[in-house]
């Protein structure tokens, strides 16, 4: 136990958003964006419902993957008893606390299952032997039950960890850390399984004849890169805004940068492995998915992804200086966040537009709508809490942390 005199005296004022600070307005801005976005979606979507559902799916998956990546990050920090990231943990907790919000944002997709998934069209299974085979799994009722199960489990874990950490702010009870640490292992396993099946259900079944055992890992890799990228942007933005600038140091930014670099490489490894094995064996039942993404202008997007999601960030994030300065790290993070969106767009959209990329106003509208809700809810939560886990027993270690 750390003796009382050694406990860091971080005053609550240092780590909350002060009244009158510009960041207090973000929830309102977010809500306005959300309303505008939803209105645009409603108007434009009435004319083109299929496009609306696909665009909404991409934006939904984007923000969901950030929340799931956040949950993984925090769970791994607990399980591995990592000390360095504690000052950043509240940011992650706020983001994964959005998982129940994502459950609500999933509802529009329920209305569009027949537009999104060819197996959900009534009578599809009669025409297609493979769909008949998969019907016990790929049918609307079971699909919806699974979705409810995923969101139920994710929300449960998210709220358990969020409440535990917030509660510790008040009580300072070290037993909370111990309990959350013990639960982290099983939680990670449950999260891995649910996330895998969710990615199978929501993305892989867009091409119902296709399958890949790597797909769950691929989704995880992308979501983790996305979250670390978001973390870098938020951390730097907070420093710039005068919040936590005495708490988050160059050392923390350096570690975020290292994680960003490492998981960009990991994403590339997973993405390439999946592509490579399918390319090499050249079996038509597997190559259809990649063929679709090499058709017309989709080929350009594929090449752009390789260059932008791997090659450029690899060389950019290699150097030490880039990772330690807020401006340069945030640029890298913002770029990778955009690349993650492109990745999900590239995974989903060719089902709707096989002939080539067809950007649509609905893509933007959906992004604004879903993003607005996400940002509004997350920033509203930020206002009501301390920005670091105030009375975590290992906060001192995280504050003083120094890199190699």
């Amino acid at each position, binding site marked *: 136990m750390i003796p009382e005199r050694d406990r860091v005296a971080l005053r609550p004022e240092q780590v909350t958003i002060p009244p009158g600070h510009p960041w207090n307005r973000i929830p309102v801005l977010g809500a306005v964006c959300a309303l505008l976005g939803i209105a645009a979606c409603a108007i434009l979507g009435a004319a083109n419902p299929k496009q609306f559902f696909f665009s909404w799916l991409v934006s939904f998956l984007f923000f969901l993957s950030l929340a799931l990546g956040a949950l993984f990050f925090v769970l791994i920090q607990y399980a591995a008893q990592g000390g360095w990231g504690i000052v950043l943990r509240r940011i992650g907790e706020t983001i994964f606390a959005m998982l129940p919000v994502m459950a609500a944002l999933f509802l529009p997709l329920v209305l569009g299952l027949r537009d999104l998934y060819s197996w959900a069209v009534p009578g599809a299974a009669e025409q297609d032997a493979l769909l008949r085979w998969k019907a016990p799994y790929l049918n609307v009722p079971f699909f919806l039950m699974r979705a409810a199960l995923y969101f139920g489990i994710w929300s449960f874990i998210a709220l358990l960890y969020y409440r535990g950490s917030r509660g510790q702010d008040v009580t300072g009870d070290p037993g909370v850390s111990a309990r959350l640490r013990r639960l982290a292992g099983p939680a990670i396993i449950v999260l891995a399984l649910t996330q895998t099946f969710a990615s199978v259900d929501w993305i892989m079944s867009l091409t119902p004849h296709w399958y890949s055992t790597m797909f769950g890992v691929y989704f995880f890799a992308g979501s983790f890169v996305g979250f670390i990228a978001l973390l870098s942007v938020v951390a730097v933005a907070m420093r710039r805004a005068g919040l936590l600038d005495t708490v988050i140091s160059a050392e923390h930014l350096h570690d975020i940068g290292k994680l960003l670099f490492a998981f960009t490489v990991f994403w590339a490894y997973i993405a*390439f492995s999946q592509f*490579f094995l399918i*390319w*090499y064996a*050249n079996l038509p039942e597997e190559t259809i998915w990649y063929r679709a993404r090499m058709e017309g202008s989709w080929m350009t997007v594929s090449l752009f992804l390789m260059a932008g999601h791997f090659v450029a960030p690899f060389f950019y994030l*290699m150097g030490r200086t880039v990772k330690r300065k807020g401006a340069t790290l945030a640029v890298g993070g913002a770029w990778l966040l955009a690349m993650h969106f492109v990745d999900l767009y590239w995974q989903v959209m060719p089902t709707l537009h096989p002939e080539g990329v067809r950007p649509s106003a609905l893509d933007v509208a959906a992004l604004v709508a879903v993003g607005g809700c996400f940002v509004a809810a997350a920033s509203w939560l930020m206002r009501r809490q301390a920005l670091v886990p105030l009375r975590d027993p290992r906060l001192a270690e995280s504050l003083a942390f120094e890199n190699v």
Partner: protein
Amino acid sequence: MPLLLPQLPTGPTYGILAEFATPADLYHACERVRDAGFTRWDAHTPFPVHGLEGAMGLRRSPLPWIVLGTGLTGAALGFVLQWWVHATAYPLVISGKPYFAWPAMIPITFELGVLFAALGAVLGMLGLNRLPMHHHPLFKSKVFERVTDDAFFISIESWDPQFDQSATGKLLESLGARRVELLECE
């Protein structure tokens, strides 16, 4: 090129060797020696002491740049080799793929890149450290044998412009040295 030849002071005296008791003593002494303006000096420890490079005023090692260079060279070599063999020297249609099938060239490109980078790291490190150097005046000191065990030292060489046989020794004693010794070159 005197890469592997020891860079030693000319003249009969090598310099002064001072022993310190703890890493903390050594650290503070190093800061003072650095601030006093010495350039031809070094500290010696059984293990890398955290932050001592800063206390000595050393610049960052250029090794990562050497490694980047050798690594990229290795990767390029691997890629060109495969391209040349499969697209030019002896083209064969293998599993229906084009002659220049770049995905299949990635594994070996990567491996050779890593190999050359690792060789660059090790040989670069040895080169920058001027190793192997099996003979050095410091090995003449009996107490210096403990440098790999539990003793900490500062050595100031005689060709430093500020070196003075008696004054430098007294300075080191004032900084907390347990023992000070004058060493000859031969």
